[in-house]
């Protein structure tokens, strides 16, 4: 394999692995949300209560992400 092809393969593989890593990270972040919803369901929460909780969680995550960006 010539050096240019090798470099292209390495870069392409690294990119794919990066994508895999971010998907895993997103999965890690979503896992606790699944747990929270299942716990609320088990406690008998209404659909409105669950939706409101998730909406609040999302709005809070926007603030946290903004703070992290500002601090970076």
């Amino acid at each position, binding site marked *: 394999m010539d050096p240019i092809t090798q*470099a292209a393969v*390495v*870069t392409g*593989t*690294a*990119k*794919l*692995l*990066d*994508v*895999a*890593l*971010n*998907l*895993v*990270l*997103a*999965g*890690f*972040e*979503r*896992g*606790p*949300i*699944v747990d929270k*919803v*299942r716990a609320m*369901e088990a406690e008998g929460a209404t*659909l*409105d209560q*669950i*939706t409101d909780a*998730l*909406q609040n*969680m*999302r*709005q809070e*995550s*926007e603030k*946290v*992400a*903004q*703070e*992290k*960006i500002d*601090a*970076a």
Partner: protein
Amino acid sequence: MKALIPSRLVKGFAAFLLLTSCALLAGCPGNQAFRGMTEPLHAPVVVENEDAAAKAYRLAHYTLDEANGALTAANTVIGDNAANHVWSKKKAQKYLDQSIEYGKDLDKARKTLRIGNIADATVQAEAAKKLIFALQAEIARQAGDQ
């Protein structure tokens, strides 16, 4: 190139190892990632004698919840990528601004559902969900780029 290969390959290889090893080990924390990537937020339910309106109402909530959950996960990745200097502030801000815009769409859909307009709320939430999942895919594709 030498400086580039180790960090990216090591990071990616770690993800690969995590994925494969956690497929074999029950109870491993990595299963959280598998659950997060594959399971719906709501447990599957069989509701007896559920009429069409009640089902539509439930599914509208599910759609909103999935979209809110996806944005929450995306926001965390965006914030972490900025904090860890994986992305520039400009890039992280661009994705967060996009995410906040989609969040506003979800807030509108939530208000529509609250006043009882299930059909419109579902359409609004589904439209936002498609954009949100596209944003998630874009964020994953942008990993490691400055």
